[in-house]
């Protein structure tokens, strides 16, 4: 059958980073096609090229068998290509109705029409939002509902090809079922869907074909029926887990950091845990589970967080970054450009940013001690010392992340708080970062981290605390950790919901 959308030999570079190398992809009408790969495998880049968000450096895109460029998102819409992106694209100040029709071509100038209301209503009913008022402001919806509104937006547009980038990442069970039934309904109507997901269970259940990418290259493209789940994992990773993740250390002692009754209004409902030195505790949970918020609260960045934090037997005040710095508790943000680093300052200035007390001489910051400190830290985190004077923004994501971690290394061992430690980091640097984290732990650091990358959680953590909707589900020690249990906890918290 003639593929409805096809990509041939696409390449795309971001600076020196090669995101896609000669990647080809095609989808036939009426199929649900899964696009799988690890973080950073190039899935999102490929999707963005096929939806007009990005332009390829090399290669062709074909629509209905003809070579056809996709100039921008408007053009993609004219070609009946729809895209539900991973990051939500809801205008929070507009009503649900306006959000459903937002950006749709052919909406008349005076757009308050009953016909449009009815079509929006039907689309919302189809994705399981029958209870939602059309006039409700979209900013007041839960994350899952916003995601469903976005899918409804694509349904009213009568698209032929629909890209869904991790559509279920933020959804509860019931909502996931709604999305699946909507997808099946669309398939019955002959639409093509490209479904991007980590979750192999969903892929096996829902999809007809699967294409796997790894490190920006094609690995395999096959019918789902012809491939086993294990084989799928093997293709995605291309290596065994033990190569990637360092051996856990044996050091263990009394709890270094103890948290009791951590609360953030509307986000976390009472969280208790303790981390001994030398261990990595991972808070696992989906978006909206409160895991990220918990780490941010410990980092002193959530102003209305309450609860007791005891570090080495001494209480610690929440909400003051300054006190945390004094007690060697440092935070590495997942948003490097926005919150982590000073991208237009030099690498050495970034290293010194939180260590002024170390480099101060006669109350002044002289260049030599700053240099010395930066060289020492660069050596520990394996950043090329020749680049100390470069602008931090010119370095790769992996090197930037190493700088962000290096900045936290203090003379005495401390506590490291990390959100998504390897987001936007290529596979090679990722292994180095894991090794670095383990090395710090062996020196007596304790790490509290979050991750939505399940493989990373299983491979790296000494302890895993699973969270769902602002509360703890369960805590696993090193020997009890398994991907299936964690997945069950963070997506299928049956025990929890029955209790509540």
């Amino acid at each position, binding site marked *: 059958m003639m593929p409805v959308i096809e990509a041939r030999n696409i390449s795309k570079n971001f600076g020196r980073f090669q995101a896609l190398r000669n990647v080809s992809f095609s989808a036939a009408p009426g199929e649900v096609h899964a696009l799988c790969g690890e973080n950073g495998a190039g899935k999102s880049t490929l999707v963005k090229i096929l939806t007009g968000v990005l332009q390829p450096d090399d290669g062709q895109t074909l629509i209905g068998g003809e070579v056809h460029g996709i100039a921008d998102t408007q053009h993609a819409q004219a070609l009946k290509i729809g895209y539900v992106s991973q990051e939500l694209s809801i205008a929070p100040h507009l009503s649900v109705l306006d959000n459903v029709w937002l950006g749709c071509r052919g909406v008349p100038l005076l757009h308050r029409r009953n016909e449009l209301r009815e079509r929006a209503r039907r689309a919302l009913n189809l994705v399981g939002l029958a209870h939602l008022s059309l006039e409700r402001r979209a900013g007041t919806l839960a994350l899952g509902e916003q995601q469903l509104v976005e899918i409804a937006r694509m349904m009213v547009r009568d698209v032929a090809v629909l890209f869904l980038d991790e559509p279920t990442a933020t959804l509860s069970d019931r909502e996931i079922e709604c999305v699946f039934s909507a997808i099946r309904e669309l398939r019955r109507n002959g639409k093509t869907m490209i479904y991007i997901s980590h979750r192999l269970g969903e892929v096996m259940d829902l999809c007809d074909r699967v294409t796997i990418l790894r490190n920006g290259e094609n690995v395999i493209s096959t019918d789902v029926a012809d491939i086993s789940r294990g084989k799928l994992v093997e293709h995605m990773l291309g290596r065994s887990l033990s190569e990637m993740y360092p051996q856990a250390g044996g050091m263990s002692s009394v709890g270094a950091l103890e948290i009791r009754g951590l609360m953030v209004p509307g986000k976390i409902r009472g969280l208790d845990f303790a981390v001994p030195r030398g261990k990595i505790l991972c808070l696992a949970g989906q978006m909206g589970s409160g895991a990220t918020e918990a780490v941010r609260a410990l*980092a*002193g*960045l959530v102003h209305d967080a309450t609860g007791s934090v005891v570090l080495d037997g001494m209480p610690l005040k929440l909400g003051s*970054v*300054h006190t*945390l*710095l004094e007690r060697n508790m440092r*935070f590495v*943000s997942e948003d490097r450009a*926005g*919150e*982590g*680093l*000073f*991208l*237009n*300052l030099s690498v050495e*200035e970034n290293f*010194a*940013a*939180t260590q*002024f007390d170390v480099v*101060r001489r006669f*109350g*002044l*910051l*002289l260049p030599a001690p700053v240099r010395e400190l930066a060289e020492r830290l660069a050596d520990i985190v394996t950043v090329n010392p020749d680049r100390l*004077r470069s602008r931090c923004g010119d370095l790769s994501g992996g090197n930037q992340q190493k700088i962000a971690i290096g*900045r936290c290394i203090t003379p005495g061992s401390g506590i490291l708080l990390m959100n998504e430690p390897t987001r936007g980091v290529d596979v090679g640097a990722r292994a180095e970062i894991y090794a670095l984290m383990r090395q710090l732990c062996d020196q007596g650091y304790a790490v509290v981290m979050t991750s939505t990358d399940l493989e990373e959680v299983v491979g790296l953590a000494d302890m895993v605390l699973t969270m769902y909707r602002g509360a703890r589900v369960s805590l696993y020690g090193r020997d009890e950790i398994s991907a299936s249990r964690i997945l069950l906890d963070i997506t299928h918290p049956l025990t929890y919901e029955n209790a509540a």
Partner: protein
Amino acid sequence: MSPKYFWVERLMAFRPRLWISTHGALLPLGLALLLLTAMFTPGFLSAPNLLSLVNTASVIGCVAVAMMLITISGNVLSFALGVTTGCSAMMFAWLTGYESGLLATVGALVFSTVVTGFQGLLIGLFRANPIIVSIAALGLMTGAAELISQGSMIYASGSQLQGLNDTFWSVPASGWVLLALVLLADFILRFTRFGRNIVMLGSNMTAAKAAGISLWRTTVGVYALAGLFSGIAGILLAARYNAGSLEYGIGYDYSAIAAVLVGGTFIGGGEGTALRTLAGLVVITGAGAILLLHGVSTEYQFLFTGLVLLVAVLVQGR
């Protein structure tokens, strides 16, 4: 790196910092053009002309350094520095009535520091929009000064600070004051913790917060410092004219921000030096003087400043 090459490397590193910045591409070009036209402008390089140029430029220069601090800290610009200069000139002139140069100086400086520092407090504490706060301060101070002075000029009594009008080594005292402020500002920005905090705050406010920098303390500090520098500009004015008036500061904000931007300070904050601002000031005032000497009328000065500022901003775009 072996110690032998340390100073070589330092010297190599010094040049790019001053001249080749991503945003300051305009600066060397402007200086070269200025030098070239200055040579072909009769009367420009004469001693009286240069003296009067330094006199005018030094007051605007103090305000420009103040503005540069605000721009670097990520607060874009202030519309209230000019009026602060005028007000502190009035304050100074009024206080000279008490026959104490020290009292007048301290009074004027405390006034300008506190008034501007308070704006910094509102901006740092509530993250109120800095431009709007400065516009409100402009209205408030203009209104209050008009109400108190009834729109008239305040004449200074006594001549405690006549020394400010003398020249030392054939450069007017105000020029030395400006040079001192430039060096002080660059010293603070490069070698003190407060200065690095200012730069980091301007570079990325969220990251600065996550790195434990107190936003409100740094903002108050940078505004107070800017206020202090504007106050010094006011005193220079009052000493020169032996009077204080609200008229004095008018238009300084625009010349100052133009000098800051031509000097290659990044309008988004986090990049720039006072020395480059000084060079930007030289370009702006020098070019203005040359235009005047060529018989271009004063009306065009405003337009010229506007166009230069626009070009300086456009150069910063990608």
